[in-house]
Structures are given as structure tokens and as C-alpha cells.
């Protein structure tokens, strides 16, 4: 299997009166189609590592390769283009745009990318929503959906541009156990059946147990001996 995401000696420090190290010398490789869980105690730098891997943040030192490309030489716009075409994000909160319908939320990244015309984007949006079991909610506004449904729509939006990697930050952190299990299954299936690479930050041991690879993070450093207490 090919490596789709690689980090080399990744560090992120916040400068200030009291400098804070969020991520410290992390190196890792994630292969295509893998479901990876990043775990660790609160404040261990899990989300910060995810933002660096997702090109949302720029490392203080170290490099990230996405699909074989060294992203350290890219500017803000080029990083945004890589996020748009190759990455999808799911957050703890759905962050759907309240003024748009469910379908419009899903087609938003496709319209920005511009590979598909409006009709094709709508058709693909419906297809993804249906695959995730919320096709019948397409015309509704986000506030008319349940928490689990919103998170499935958020996953559909992350899948809109058929990304290589989906990065999820506590995707079940705000859901009840039934919805949580459902989202966990969707992500696992995306990895194992659709060949998507899933990198998820989680506190949830059950969620992590479904992953192919677990990465422990303590004080910004990889520590695979760490286990949830």
C-alpha cells in the first residue's frame, strides 16, 4: 500500500511570553485506505497534529507530504487548493452553514472546486447523502436535523470532492451512543470499502478500537504505550 500522508519531525510552537509547544518532533506515515485513530489525554496536541496533517496550520519545523507532494513550499492559497481537492474535514460540531439547505452545504466544496457543473454537483451531492442515509433530508435546513443526521451531512460534505484523506476531530464527541456507533461505522466503511484514508482524533476507546492503527500522543510527542484511563 502507498503512503498517502507523511510527517517528518513535525513541531508546532506558539510564541509568546510563555512559549507553548503543541506538537514536538512527530514523524509518522499513514497508508492509503487506513483508518487511523490519534489518541491521548486532553491538551496532548492531538487536534494540533490533525490541523498540521490537514494543512490547516503551518508547522514551526518539519514537513508534511500529502500524496507524495512536499507541502512545506506551498503558500496559503496552494494549501487551500490541496485541502479542497485532496482532503475532507469532519469536526466535533457539524459546522454546517445555517442559511443553506443540506444539499447546498454538501455541494458547496464541489462548486468551489468547479470540476462539476451545478447539475452534476447536485446529483453527486444527492448520491453521497443517500449513501450516508440522509438523502431524504436534502432540502431541509441543518437546524431541522438531529445531531447524528447533521454529523452525517458533515461527513457527506467532507466526501463531496472525493478526497484522499478525511481528517476527523472528535467526530463522535457530541453524539449519543447510537449516533456515535453509526458515525464510527460510516468512517470505518469509508476506509475499508471506499478506500478512503481516515485520520480521526478521539477520546473514545471504543471508537479507537475499530481503527487499523492507533497513535498515542502525550505532551505533543508520540507515545504508543499510552492507554485511555
Amino acid at each position, binding site marked *: 500500500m502507498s503512503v498517502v500522508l507523511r510527517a517528518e519531525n513535525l513541531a508546532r510552537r506558539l510564541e509568546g511570553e510563555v512559549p507553548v509547544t503543541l506538537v514536538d518532533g512527530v514523524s509518522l506515515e499513514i497508508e492509503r485506505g487506513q483508518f487511523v485513530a490519534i489518541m491521548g489525554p486532553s491538551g496532548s496536541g492531538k*487536534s494540533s497534529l490533525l*490541523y498540521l496533517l*490537514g494543512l*490547516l*496550520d503551518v508547522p514551526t519545523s518539519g514537513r508534511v507530504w500529502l500524496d507524495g507532494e512536499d507541502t512545506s513550499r506551498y503558500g*496559503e*492559497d496552494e494549501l*487551500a*487548493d*490541496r*485541502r*479542497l*481537492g485532496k*482532503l475532507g*474535514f469532519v*469536526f*466535533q*460540531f457539524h*459546522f454546517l*452553514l*445555517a*442559511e*443553506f439547505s443540506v444539499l*447546498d452545504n454538501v455541494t*458547496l*466544496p464541489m*462548486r*468551489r*472546486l468547479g470540476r462539476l457543473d451545478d447539475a452534476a454537483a447536485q446529483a453527486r451531492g444527492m448520491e453521497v447523502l443517500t449513501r450516508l442515509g440522509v438523502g431524504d433530508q436534502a432540502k431541509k435546513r441543518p437546524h431541522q436535523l438531529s445531531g447524528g443526521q447533521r454529523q452525517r451531512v458533515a461527513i457527506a*460534505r467532507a466526501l463531496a470532492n472525493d478526497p484522499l484523506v478525511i481528517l476527523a*476531530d472528535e467526530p463522535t464527541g457530541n453524539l449519543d451512543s447510537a449516533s456515535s456507533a453509526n458515525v464510527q461505522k460510516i468512517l470505518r466503511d469509508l476506509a475499508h470499502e471506499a478506500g478512503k484514508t481516515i485520520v480521526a482524533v478521539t477520546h473514545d476507546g471504543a471508537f479507537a478500537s475499530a481503527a487499523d492503527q492507533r497513535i498515542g500522543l502525550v505532551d505533543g510527542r508520540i507515545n504508543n504505550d499510552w492507554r485511555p484511563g
Partner: protein
Amino acid sequence: MTLRLDIALAHLTSRRRQTAVSLSGVVLGVAFFLAVSSLMRGSEKDFMKRLVDNSAHITVSDEYRAPREQPAELRWADGAIGISNVKPQTETRGIRGYRQKLEFIESLPGVRVAPVLVGSAAVVFAGRQEGITLSGVIPETLKGVSTIDDKIVEGSLDALAANPNGIVVGKGLADKFNVGLGRTVGVSTPNSAVRPMKVVGVFRTGISNYDDTQTFVLLKRAQVMLDRPNRVNRFILQLDDAYEARGVATRIERSIGYKSVSWQEASEDLVSVLMIRNIIMYSVVSAILVVASFGIYNTLSTIVMEKTRDIAIMKSMGFHARDVRVVFLLEGFIVGTIGSSLGLLIGVALMKVLSGIAIRVPGATEEIFLPVWWGAEQYLMAAAFALSSCLVAAYLPARKAGRVHPVDILRGAT
């Protein structure tokens, strides 16, 4: 662009009330801008038209701008002895050799000229006496340089040619003495006894002072009555292009020596006042639009504040900072465009109402309608100013939105 437009419209419609308040600020600003501007420009244009149409474009008078140089000064310019307290020669007032000078002016292209002798006199009738301005004219040439013939309400200016003892008087004077066409009044000057003259014409200009005191007689008759044989003391000129008056006046003055005053020079103070008035007017109406733009700034700043998470999520999806800036600039543009369009419509309606209002100006004898200018320039100016204010007001929130760093927002999201 349609995606960004959709997002911009979604933002504006999600805050309907605040958008409506911002919009109404722009609408009222543009409407008032237009109404005030059309009135000010209308009155200015009306004033200038009256100035140009009703007065001479150039008046040449029997005066010099500077004392004439003495022959001795010219001959011995570097002389050791200076000449002072020179007493000018006593001579009959008027333009010397006016026929030659008249011929020169008549030879200029696009120029019509009438020689006039103006003096003071008094009308005596039924034991009453009233001071008047007596203008000796040649009816044919006067008609070429003045609109007075159009203002005749009884008789005619040409009747002066047929009746050497005829006089044309203003309506105010005629009413004051209760005299009409064919009646005889006495006219006296400092140099002559009371001379009976027959009223052959009555004019009304609407300017009460002029209608009360101005009279016209034949030039030759005036020369006799004012004891100025073969003299005139004014050349009244009218040009095909009134706005060339300043240059033509300078040329005439340089050639014949007598003071030549263009209408622009004569009205310089008034033109300056009009210009200052316009500056004040545009500052005031622009202030309305500037205040309106603060409303837009407020609305868009609130949207940026409220939508910070949405902006962060859009940027995390792959939207560029430029996309986000364009969304907010579009919001300013939409408010500006809709506001300007509605403002122009309401402004035109206001102008229509204003143009129907009749007023009586102090000193005028008839009612006039408020002069409203309908020129296209002011619509463009109002719309352009409103639109630029909206874009400037949108720029700061747009810049702030473009600078949102998704990680800062996502980290703090709860």
C-alpha cells in the same frame, strides 16, 4: 462568482432587519443627494441662463481700467523728473470716435453690438417726478443684443424709429403714473428742459427695479437731451458663444483701450458664491451617504463576527482568503446597488414634486417654479458616491473576514 454571490445573498437575507436598515440609509442618502443636487444645480443653471440671456455678454464703457499714460511719460520714460498730480483734460464724456470703434467690434466674428448712450433723467407727469435711467438706442441694433423686444407687452421698440419723440417705458413706471400707450409724459435731463414724449411701448421683464426705472429713446434724441452730440458711452455686445466673452473682452480692450467687461468678470463674485454654495451642498448631502455607509459597516461587521465559524469552516474546506473577501465586498456592492437604484427612483419622484412647487421670489412680479435640473451627471454622481461608500464600508469587514485563521476559531470552538 455565483457561489460567492449565493453566500453573500444568504448572509444578507439571514439578517433581514439589519440589512433593511442599512439599505434604507443608502436609499434616503441617494434620494436626498439627488433632490438637493437637482435643486442647487437647477437654480445655478437658471441663474446663469438669466445672467447670460438677460444681460450683455460684454459691456464696453467710456472708462479706463488704469489712468492713461501721459505723452511726456512715454517720451522720457527714464526722465529724472517725475510727473504728478496731472489734471485730466475736461471733455465731453463718452467713447471718442465711437463709429470707428464700433466698426472694429462689428468686424469681429460671432459678435453683435449696439451703441447706447445712458444717462439720468426724470419723468414728470401730473405734478409728480420720478428719476429714471434714459438709454438712447438704435432699435434695430438693440434687438440684436437684448431680449427687451421679447418683453414688450404694448407697442413696440420699432415705434421709436417712426416717432423721434417716442419713449418706451417699463410696466412698473407706466403703472406708477397710470400712463399707457399713446400718452405723453414729460422727460427732463440736467441739460435740458422738460420735453414731452409719447409712450410708444411698454415692457415687462419681471425685475421690478428695472421695470420701474428703465426707459428707451432714440439714440439721436438722447444725445440731444443729454448734451452729448455724436457720443455714446456704452457698447453692448452679444456673442454667439457666451462663454467666449472673457477672451473677446480682453481683445477689445487691448485694441480700443476702453474698459470691456465680460459677464463672467461682472459676475465673478456671484459665480464664486455659487461655487462655494455647491461645495457646501455636496459636503452636506455626501455626509448623509457617509453616515449611511456606517450602517453598512455595522451590518457587515456584525455578520463577520457572527459568521466567524462559517468563515473558518469555508477556509478549512479550501476557500481562499480572497473568496471570503469577495463575499463581503459583494454584500456591500449588493446593498449599494439596490440602495442606489431605489434611491434614484425615490430621488426622481422627489424632484418631480419639487419641480411642481411654485414660489414668488422677493423682487419678482410673477410666480416661478422651483428650478430642478434633470441632467444625467447627478444620477451618476449619486449612484457612484453611494456605491463607493458601500464598498469602502464593506472593505474593512471583508479584510477582517479574509484574515480569519481557521485553526484559531476551530481551537476555540465549543
